[in-house]
């Protein structure tokens, strides 16, 4: 996506997935980053024409373009992440970010001593609202009186690459009482995590496992296994299964990160509660509202 390959979260995860596949199988792949919107279609066509199969793309922005391109290459399999494209040769991988965000929201609420937690999104777009809404539900599930401060970084592409603003928003949220902050803002999140660590409060990473960035200071990370999705798509190769694949809690597509870096921050009680909720969500007994289903959020 236009955000760039190494935003430490989303796009980087995709890259990791591709690398893993290449490392294990010795296969080769081409990768392209976009400089312009018009290049999306161009790149898809050129890759398909050159015989690349499957062609994997990340980001909702490809959806419309893929819809145009896919029918022209019936012999090529495509995989798109974060968007449903209804074509016979397309595999649409969507993640239930609201579920993962719900879990980290619960953890945030449990870890919060002030009862105020924060959310910093890159830009006010539907995807980010889905993150924010799931998070808010998780927080409220634990502490109905909790206050959630939500901020967005900006309205230009710079919003995804402005760690300075991210840090400033984090400090502002801390001053308003927040002691756990969840960042879903690409490269901007690096600044959020940094400022939280500096200010002695906790943060929650996103997409990839970002716990290691500030050991003992990142409560957890909301995992969105884009790497797995890419890896699997490559692994299936030309036999790529088409149709919609929902990467949810059940399938391990989303989740929260536990490792040595945050072990000390997550109490047994906290983990038990979260795991129980996860089990309920998987079982279908606990519903997490998806912002995208009706463009609204029951809590905020």
């Amino acid at each position, binding site marked *: 996506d236009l955000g760039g390959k190494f935003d430490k979260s989303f796009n980087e995860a995709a890259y990791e997935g591709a690398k893993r596949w290449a490392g294990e199988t010795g296969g080769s792949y081409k990768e392209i*980053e976009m400089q312009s919107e*018009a*290049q999306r279609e161009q790149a898809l066509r050129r890759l398909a024409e050159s015989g690349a199969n499957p062609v994997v793309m990340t980001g909702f922005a490809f959806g*419309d373009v893929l819809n145009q391109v896919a029918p022209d290459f019936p012999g090529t399999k495509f995989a798109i992440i*974060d968007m449903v494209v209804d074509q016979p040769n397309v595999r649409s991988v969507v993640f239930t970010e609201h579920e993962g965000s719900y879990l980290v929201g619960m953890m945030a609420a449990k870890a919060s001593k002030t009862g105020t937690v924060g959310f910093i999104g890159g830009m006010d777009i539907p*995807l980010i609202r889905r993150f924010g809404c799931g998070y808010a539900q998780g927080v409220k599930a634990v502490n109905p009186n909790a206050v959630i401060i939500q901020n967005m970084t900006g309205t230009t592409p710079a919003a995804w690459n402005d760690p300075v603003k991210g840090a400033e928003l984090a400090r502002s949220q801390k001053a308003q009482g927040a002691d756990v902050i969840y960042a879903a803002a690409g490269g901007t999140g690096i600044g959020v995590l940094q400022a939280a660590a500096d200010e002695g409060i906790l943060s929650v990473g996103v997409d990839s496992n970002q716990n290691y960035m500030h050991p003992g200071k990142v409560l957890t990370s909301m995992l969105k296994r884009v790497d797995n999705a890419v890896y699997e798509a490559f692994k299936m190769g030309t036999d790529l299964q088409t149709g919609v694949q929902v990467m949810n809690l059940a399938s391990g597509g989303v989740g929260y990160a536990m490792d040595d870096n945050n072990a000390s921050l997550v109490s047994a009680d906290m983990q038990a509660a979260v795991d129980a909720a996860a089990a309920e969500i998987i079982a279908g007994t606990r519903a997490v509202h998806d912002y995208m289903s009706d463009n609204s959020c029951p809590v905020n």
Partner: protein
Amino acid sequence: MSARRPLPPLLDALVVPLASLVIAFAISGLVILAIGEDPVAAMKLMVEGALGSTYGWGYTLYYATNFMFTGLAVAVAFHAGLFNIGGEGQATLGGLGVALVCLMLPWPHWSVAFLAATVSAAAFGAAWAALPAWLQARRGSHIVITTIMFNFIAASLLNYLLSNVLRPAGSMDPASARFAEGLQLPRLGAVLEPLGIAFSDRTPANVTLFVAILAGVAVWALIWRTRIGYQIRAFGKSERAAVYAGISPVRVTIIAMLISGALAGMMAVNTVMGEAQRLLLNSVEGAGFIGIAVALMGRSHPAGVALAALLFGFLYQGGAELALWTKIPRELITVIQALVILFTGALDNMVRMPAEWLWARISGGRGR
């Protein structure tokens, strides 16, 4: 120095930029070498990818169309002595104008919609330039600041509209709905086919290119052939002399900025209606800023602007090819763009000075 002699205009207009380009690409080659790639292969890939086929040309011309509009916009303002950094915001609003026209009404034919969208894009772009223009003319608020601010405000406005108003229900993408099927603008391939010219129809280059060329001609005529153009230039060269001549600074400032904003806005027809067929969050993608470089390098003359726009179109498309087939990061293209701007635009005298010295030697006998 005195041992030099000005080059004849034709020589100056051809040799100096060409030699500068060569230097820029030579240094780009060194950069490519430094990152461990093969510069000759890379350059070949760029040139062939951008100019070696009608497919490449199609993309090159598509980008050039954008840059022609924004470059002309900046150029018109320059002629009035105004530095319009607001192309980005004006084009953003232009996109809104196009989208509203295409989405709101059922158009019988693409051509009617095209006309309406062009007018609407121009009107929206001009409207976004109107307030900065008025503030500059009446209140003396520096146009550089106000247009920068209006870029940010436009981004916020579009972000709001796309996330909340124009986005089709259930869509994850902060973009408007796709326009009706029939509104797809004819691509260059389709246009040139009746003329017996085989041109790839797989590229986004479309009829808007002709509007851009027309706009260039119109700007030329406006600036150098009409009364208002005369007034714009007079005001741009000397405000005091313009007042002496009875030219109203307020009127000229506002008119020039409206034209400038309209041109910037019209760029959106190319991206929104010609390519994406819907309004995207990032449909301007920096073309407003490239327009500044294009206008400066084109010396604010439509012909120069067209050439500079073509050069940038080449760099974009050539760069895309590089990104597609090599491991060279896309930032390299930015570096090449920088070097081209630097050497052809700012270091042109580096070539001109020795060239004039040489010219003095060569033509020494014929001087007065």
